[in-house]
């Protein structure tokens, strides 16, 4: 029975808890050529900003021990570009459709959210890891006082379910989550990538033009899982957990730590069909362990 994989996240019903993470799955189209992506619980779009962005110059990817660093720099067609060229396909997918929104100022965030809220999508994921231009580049995702402002405004700007995506670079991840709950977010997703560095010792230069880049993949899983666990113990709104999930065992760990949905990012690059395999694995685990609904094991640890 597929049905026992269903989960409720705020007002939304997911077929299963498996959601594809922002920035690793485009707008779904590419993977659609490889398998039936409507079997998934949901997908998060590539991060969109108010205006089109060309992203970062120089190397954009570097492999590390069980991880990868990326410095895509939010290349995206902009909200309008998305609505014009991508939305038609995206909105007709039979799964939960989440649009990930980035921005450098509160005004940008609010405008983006207003535009996208008119469209036929299911949820907004607010990525607060982007730099806050006003505060001199300090990311919204670091200090909870700064995050509070943007969450408040975002909340006011939409009636759609709103999930705030936390950065693991936050000074206090639990405090940050509590702020999200206080400001009326419908859920939280975490973690985004870790600020990291790699140096080309022969060239005596950072691998990345921006000096630092974001680390993802199995390497970060133990830290991400801890953060998800801490957050889940301290808020009542539902959580989407992610960070280094590559198999169903990892997914179950996040669910036992308290996550309602799990997101898969980097693992898509290891195996484009990983989403299906993880869904099948969760189902198998539930049968073996006689778990009728994920509610039975969610947050059990």
């Amino acid at each position: 029975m597929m049905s026992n994989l269903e989960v409720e996240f705020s007002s939304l019903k997911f077929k299963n808890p498996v959601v594809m993470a922002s920035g690793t799955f485009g707008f779904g189209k590419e993977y659609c050529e490889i398998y039936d992506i409507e079997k998934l619980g949901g997908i998060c779009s590539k991060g969109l900003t108010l205006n089109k962005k060309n992203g970062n110059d120089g190397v954009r990817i570097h492999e590390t021990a069980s991880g990868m660093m990326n410095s895509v720099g939010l290349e995206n067609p902009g909200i309008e570009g998305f609505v014009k060229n991508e939305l038609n396909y995206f909105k007709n997918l039979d799964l939960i459709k989440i649009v990930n929104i980035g921005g450098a100022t509160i005004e940008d965030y609010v405008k983006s959210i207003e535009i996208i809220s008119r469209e036929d999508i299911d949820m907004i994921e607010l990525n607060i890891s982007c730099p806050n231009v006003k505060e001199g580049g300090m990311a919204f995702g670091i200090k909870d006082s700064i995050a509070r402002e943007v969450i408040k405004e975002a909340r006011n700007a939409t009636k759609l379910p709103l999930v705030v995506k936390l950065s693991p670079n936050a000074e206090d991840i639990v405090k940050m989550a509590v702020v999200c709950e206080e400001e009326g977010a419908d859920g939280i997703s975490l973690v985004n990538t870790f600020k990291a560095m790699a140096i080309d010792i022969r060239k005596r230069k950072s691998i990345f033009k921006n000096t630092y880049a974001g680390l993802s993949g199995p390497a970060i899983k133990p830290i991400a899982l801890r953060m998800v666990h801490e957050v889940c113990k301290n808020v009542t709104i539902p959580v989407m957990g992610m960070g280094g999930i590559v198999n169903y065992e990892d997914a179950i760990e996040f669910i036992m730590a308290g996550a309602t949905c799990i997101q898969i990012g980097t693992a898509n690059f290891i195996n484009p069909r990983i989403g299906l395999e993880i869904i099948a694995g969760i189902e198998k685990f539930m049968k073996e362990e006689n778990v009728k609904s994920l509610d039975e094991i969610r947050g059990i640890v």
Partner: protein
Amino acid sequence: MAKVISNEYLGENMYILKVSGIFKGKMGQFYMLRAWENYPLLSRPISIHDIGEDYISFLYKVVGKGTKILSELKPFDEIKLEGPYGNGFKEVDGKIALVGGGIGIAPLYLAAKTLKNVDVYMGFRKKAVLEDKFKKYSNEVNITVGRNITDILDVNKYDYILTCGPEIMMKKIVAMAKGTNTKVYVSIENKMACGVGACLVCTCKTKQGNKKTCKDGPVFLGEEVLFDE
């Protein structure tokens, strides 16, 4: 999961890996190869070198962890292939030169086989490989060892040049063809993650804006590409 037929060492750290199965793909397209579990993390993009009814083959050079593991494969070992990805070379018609530098010759063999009647130019550091193999499908095979292949290439002789190799070589050829009627197609090598156009880490800057090397490429019209510096 596919099975290795053979993995032949050619010298100069180059190998030809032959894998059994029915595969799709045309000249200039590539597969993401993986002959390991979770380490290294990413699969490796390798061009189709040759393809037949019941096999596909890859010509690769050992440069790091992933290609090292490939080089240790033995007959009957398992390997995962995802693909074919990318646009591949256009089926052009006219006087054609294929120009490869080093391991850049990898995709040119299937191009020669497909297009026929081509002239082949191959530049090597120390030792030439696969000369005879290429001869079978081409009018002439020109080789330099330890010297730039561009030294012996007259772009004006050709309607089309398809090239793959070090960026500096391809850039040079594009420059040489500037103002002539010769159209140059280059096959770009960039690091990749997804291979399918979803992650945007493999950007190739072009006059038309950012393109995805994996999906919009790896073959681009040379004059469109904004090479580094």
